[in-house]
């Protein structure tokens, strides 16, 4: 009972492969346009890749070579797709919506309704059964959509940012519901929220530009990110470069830090990353001297409120961040375009192989 997929779409620069064990949930994250929805649509059968193979529970989903080959239609794949918008059928009642999957499979009307009621109870939406979708709130509709997808008893559940359109009150409710129903179920969930990845998924896969940037258990990724996106998720600064001696060479910079993961001399020449939290960064207007500190000359790109601090973004595309107090920002006269120095102690930097 396995699931595996490998697909490439030349036009989008997409090339991803993924496999899931029974009961495993994988969270897919990445910047916009990275190819997350593309992957889901390919698995669901709504998009033709140029080449690749997909297989679910022994059934071939597709097997293509330069656009030709075997292709199973979406309604025969045993997958169920839940999108950002609930897309409940507006002309059917909630109960009829949930019963849609079983009835399409040939289940007699009465049995389908019973099954639908069971799933509505599972998502705590029984009292909504005779309402029309137009009469539901966003959170209620999304819950019904979950019931509808589960009623088909899919071998693989596909969720495309299910919480994205919900407000801050409805999202946690749905998250708790999903945690309950996804337990023991094979699922792929696309999300922008690191909380979803932590709560719902066993593994995280980061997609960037149509390729897998990194993947692994969620906590590990967040503790030791190796891609810029993951670092952003974890709220860390990340600089990538080449390992050398006791530090990292990134362009013409040398960064020093802790490398407990690889004690002793670092293997020179290997790609590596250095991460450090914004709270450990100090901002100066002039270059600092002495003591084992790292100092980067950068140009301020942005200032944004961050809790009770100001997050100063600087560098190429705002890659690096420093958290300063509002008073410090005012004293320094920080404005976008100002040349400043980001200084961080070596003790606060962690270096490890990429």
């Amino acid at each position, binding site marked *: 009972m396995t699931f595996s997929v490998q697909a490439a779409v030349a036009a989008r620069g997409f090339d991803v492969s993924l496999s899931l064990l029974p009961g495993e949930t994988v969270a897919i994250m990445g910047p916009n346009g990275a190819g997350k929805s593309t992957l889901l649509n390919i698995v*669901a*059968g*709504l998009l033709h890749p140029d080449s690749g193979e997909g297989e679910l529970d022994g059934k071939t989903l597709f097997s293509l070579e330069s656009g030709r080959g075997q292709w199973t*239609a*979406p*309604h*025969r*794949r045993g*997958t*169920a*797709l839940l*999108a950002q*918008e609930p*897309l409940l*059928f*507006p*002309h059917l*009642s909630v109960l009829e919506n949930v019963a*849609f*999957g079983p009835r*399409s*499979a040939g289940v007699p009307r009465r049995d389908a309704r019973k099954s639908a009621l069971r799933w509505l109870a599972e998502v705590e939406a029984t009292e909504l059964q*005779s*309402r*029309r979708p*137009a*009469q*539901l*709130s*966003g*959170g*209620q*509709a999304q819950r019904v959509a979950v019931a*509808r*997808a589960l009623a*088909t008893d899919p071998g693989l559940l*596909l969720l495309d940012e299910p919480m994205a*359109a919900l407000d801050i009150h409805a999202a946690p409710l749905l998250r708790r519901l999903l945690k309950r129903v996804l337990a023991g179920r094979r699922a792929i969930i696309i999300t922008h929220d690191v909380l979803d990845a932590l709560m719902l998924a066993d593994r995280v896969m980061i997609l960037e530009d149509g390729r897998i940037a990194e993947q692994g258990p969620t906590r590990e990724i967040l503790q030791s990110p190796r891609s810029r996106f993951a670092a952003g998720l974890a709220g860390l600064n990340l600089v990538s470069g080449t390992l050398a001696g006791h530090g990292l060479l990134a362009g013409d910079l040398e960064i020093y830090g802790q490398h407990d993961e690889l004690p002793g001399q670092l293997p020179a020449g290997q790609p590596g990353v250095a991460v450090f939290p914004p709270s450990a960064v100090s901002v100066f207007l002039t270059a600092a001297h002495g003591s084992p500190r790292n100092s980067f000359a950068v140009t301020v790109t942005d200032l944004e409120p961050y809790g009770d601090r100001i997050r100063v973004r600087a560098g190429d595309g705002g890659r690096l961040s420093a958290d300063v107090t509002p008073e410090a920002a005012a004293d320094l006269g920080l404005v976008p375009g100002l040349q400043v120095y980001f200084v961080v102690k070596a003790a606060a930097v962690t270096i490890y192989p990429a």
Partner: protein
Amino acid sequence: MAQARSSGYGGVPRWIYVIAAAGGLFVLLPLAAMVAEVNWPQFIPLVTSESSLTALGLSLRTSAASTALCLVLGVPLALVLARGRFPGQGLLRSFVLLPLVLPPVVGGIALLYTFGRQGLLGRTLEVAGVQIAFSTTAVVLAQTFVALPFLVVSLEGALRTAGNRYEAVAATLGARPTTVLRRVTIPLVLPGLASGAVLSFARSLGEFGATLTFAGSLQGVTRTLPLEIYLQRETDADAAVALSLVLVAVAAAVVALAYRRPRSGDSTSAGRESPTAAHASGGGVT
């Protein structure tokens, strides 16, 4: 009438109303003139004469039949034009719209060349014992020919607007393409389908040129109401006007029935709306 409307900004400048009024008058005045010409004392006898009733009955029957035929042929056409992808799609659309610009008489001649005794298909049909010319079938064919584009255009527009997101969802839920069509696509465009059918029916009711050229004119068989009016005006102008009023009234009734004001933004046509429970949570729509 002095209360201000509570709805928001309308966005229509005042002078548009003036021109719109002129447009409305342009259509209404000839109707009013006709109504003024009606010989009211003689009205009932004129419209209930044998030939009038026969013509009206024939018109209603043939228009209903041709609307049904338009549905059978037009729905697949509209689906293919809106959702399909194949070479020559644009060309097909142009051809389907052809009867809209073709003078109906020309349409009738074309049908004659196809189904007439010497026609493309008519020759074979004649051998098989099927004679179409001068029959009620010919009337239905003529009406379908001119009314089909109305249904196709109306429905294709509705299908394009609706998009195919719901169909994709239905497929992922395990519904076969035929099931998707039956349970999702058609129900969602029912309003567009209904308005297209109404337009087709109205057009069929008023069809004249193609019927005259292709089907002929015989009481009870092929003489629909427009043909009856055309004939009556030779000798009895009063009868012609009276019957015209009947035709206008029937068409107006059909259109009014189909274009009732939509209820509270609900896009379904057959739904009974459940009472909105006074639920504290929800109640609103995203």
